[in-house]
């Protein structure tokens, strides 16, 4: 078995990478969608329901990964499903990951255009972002992981800064009545964010790079819980400050940052959102991009993944522009097709693989070489 990647990452690097894989875009897009559907219960949804879902996805993916320790999904999918189907699964995941990454790149450009630079062509942002990500992908997973350790601190600083400065404006009456309308709006509001949290399924492709396999499961759980805490606070603060009004903002957290005013002079701190956004999304895109190139190389049995970096980048750049006509189409996509779409590749496919592996008795301790 040829290894495409020689780099190794530690458990904590793995955990922070999982966090960055979800967090940057979720922080900006989730509150409006959740509050629109779940109303005052949105924060309960974000804190508990989605986090629970993230734990489910992590459990399934980790169990699957542990059965085939030290190997990446595409190395053992052939063993589980048989060679042709295994390759087909590879093609499927090339499509899925590239497509999703194109969406993420589009989100990046949409936010910068909506909030900061309305006159710049979106292509400029998307191409610069992809160039940056391509460089990190070519340098391998270790570089992404280390860069991420720095970026994560930047992101968390920005978030803590914003949440603590806006805390004085929070009116917790906005959270009342609790559980309005019962459980139904919570579930309704949970569907889109669940797809977001499920993005941690990418760990299927990254597990083999862990220097210590035993750290994988606890690190993944920690990442999901941390995400739940941060995104729960995110929705809670937006809701407490703006109330139901938040549902109509395109980027509620950006509005939150613009609303900060401490003693009349500490104002206009939305540049912190930019730090979070630009740095965080670069890593997020790099992680997805990396997985896409890896899956491509594995599916086609290439000796090196570097040659596919540029072609995939061009595909993603073009796709990110043509994928939606306008921002509402994008948000609409998140609210409807994205739910089944993400449920399928994040949950249904890994679960099916795991079930088949168990039934056909593939992997597990016995098959370890």
């Amino acid at each position, binding site marked *: 078995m040829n290894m495409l990647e020689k780099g190794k990452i530690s458990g904590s690097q793995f955990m922070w990478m999982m966090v960055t894989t979800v967090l940057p875009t979720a922080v900006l897009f989730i509150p409006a969608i959740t509050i629109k559907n779940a109303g005052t219960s949105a924060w309960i949804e974000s804190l508990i329901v989605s986090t629970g879902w993230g734990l489910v996805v992590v459990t399934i993916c980790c169990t699957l990964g542990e059965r085939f320790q030290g190997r990446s999904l595409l190395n053992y999918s052939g063993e589980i499903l048989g060679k042709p189907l295994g390759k087909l699964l590879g093609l499927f995941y090339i499509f899925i990951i590239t497509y999703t990454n194109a969406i993420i790149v589009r989100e990046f450009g949409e936010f910068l255009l*909506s*909030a*900061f*630079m*309305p*006159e*710049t062509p979106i292509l*400029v942002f998307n191409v610069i972002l992809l160039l940056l990500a391509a460089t990190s992908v070519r340098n391998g997973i270790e570089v992404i992981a280390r860069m991420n350790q720095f970026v994560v601190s930047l992101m968390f600083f920005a978030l803590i800064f914003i949440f603590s400065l806006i805390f004085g404006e929070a009116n917790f*009456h*906005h959270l*009342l*009545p609790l559980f*309005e309308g019962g459980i139904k709006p919570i579930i309704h509001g949970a569907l889109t964010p669940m797809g977001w949290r499920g993005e941690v399924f990418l760990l299927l492709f990254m597990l083999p790079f862990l220097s210590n396999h035993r750290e994988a499961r606890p690190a993944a759980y920690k990442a999901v819980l941390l995400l739940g805490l941060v995104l729960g606070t995110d929705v809670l603060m937006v809701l407490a*400050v*703006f*109330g*139901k*009004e938040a549902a*109509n903002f395109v980027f509620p957290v950006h*509005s939150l940052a*613009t*609303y900060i*005013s401490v003693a*009349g002079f500490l*104002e206009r701190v939305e540049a912190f959102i930019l730090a979070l956004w630009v740095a965080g999304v670069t890593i997020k895109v790099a992680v997805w991009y990396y997985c896409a190139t890896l899956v491509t190389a594995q599916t086609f049995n290439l000796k090196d993944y570097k040659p596919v970096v540029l072609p995939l980048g061009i595909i993603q750049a073009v796709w990110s522009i043509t994928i939606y006509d306008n921002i509402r189409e994008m948000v609409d996509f998140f609210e409807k097709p994205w739910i089944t779409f993400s449920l399928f590749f994040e949950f249904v496919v890994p679960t099916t693989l795991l079930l088949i592996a168990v039934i056909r008795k593939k992997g597990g301790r016995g098959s370890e070489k």
Partner: protein
Amino acid sequence: MKSKLSLLAVLLLVFPLLAGCWSRYEIENLAIVGGMGIDRIQEDGKERYLLTVNVIRPGLSGGGTEGGGRGKPIYWRITATGDTLVDAEKNINLRSPRRVFYGHMRFVAISEKIAREKLPDVIDYLSRNSEVRLRILILLTRERATDALINYSELENTIAREVTEMASITGGIVSKFKIWDLAQTIDQLITPGLDPVIAELMTPLSVPVEPGGGPIRILRFGGGGVVKKDKLVGWLTDGETRGYLLGAGEAQEAALPVRLKNQPEPDTNINLTRSSRQLTVDVEGNKVTAKMLIHAEGDLGEYNGKEEVATNEGVFKLETKFREEVEKEVRQSFKKAQELNADIFGLGNRLHERNPKAWKKMEKDWYKILPNVKLEIKVTAHIRRTRAISEAFIPK
């Protein structure tokens, strides 16, 4: 060699990025707006928006020493009309040599006609514009809003600053108006069972400043306009607004003139120093009762009675008066609100928060139920001290 060439290529690629941002606005090309007024006028036989903005004249806003150096007012007032608000906004550029920039705008004055007919349009226009901050203050004017954008300021450098300071500093001292910003206004407008009272900016004519000169327009706050759902339905006076603020738990400092003796003129003044309010709404069958528990603290600001006041009994008597006065003020405002049939105290909202089931049944007919809501007020009032002196020096 090859690596050097590629390094050169990378360096060359970096150069275009160094030139700066694509969508940059240079400050010397910006006309910075301090405040905005929105009116609706007749033009060419149809109704159009009249947008007025006050642009700060660069170089003159430096301070008192050079202010008005060239004899020009510190503000440049530009007006433009348009079929829609954005149309009018664009038309302002017909007159401005610089890009009109709304990022530093501090307040928006909305005229009564707009508030009665077109409030949702204005709210949408302001909140959709990503240059406009959510912190801008929303004000109503009974006259033309364009008159509120006078060309000079009295004490601060700019009118925008004067208005902001009044909102943050002096508003709490008199408790006769309460200014909400855009985010708060929208929140109150879209919350069912809560109708906002938006501060009124008055533009009365003052006495002439110079002998022989004409009267000038001055700015004054006080009272507010009650907005029900999306329409202005009536105005509160200064006093009614104070009662509203007391009943809404928003009053801070205020002067409450009371009568201790049986005479028409108030002889004593109690200073309110802080207040808070608890509100519960009870439902029994079809009967709705609002229970307000108001806690007020104050001191003695003025006294010219004969009896001793700086004693335990004296203070007790004052506290009774204090209690009665607070209750009277709140009841007056409540009555006014019921006349306007607007829920300025947020009773429906409180019912929604605490008893969602009952609210669900009543939400549709809330404005039919509201005029029959009974109000129970319990005031705990304390006079803690008598300020610098005890008894009056010259008792009357």
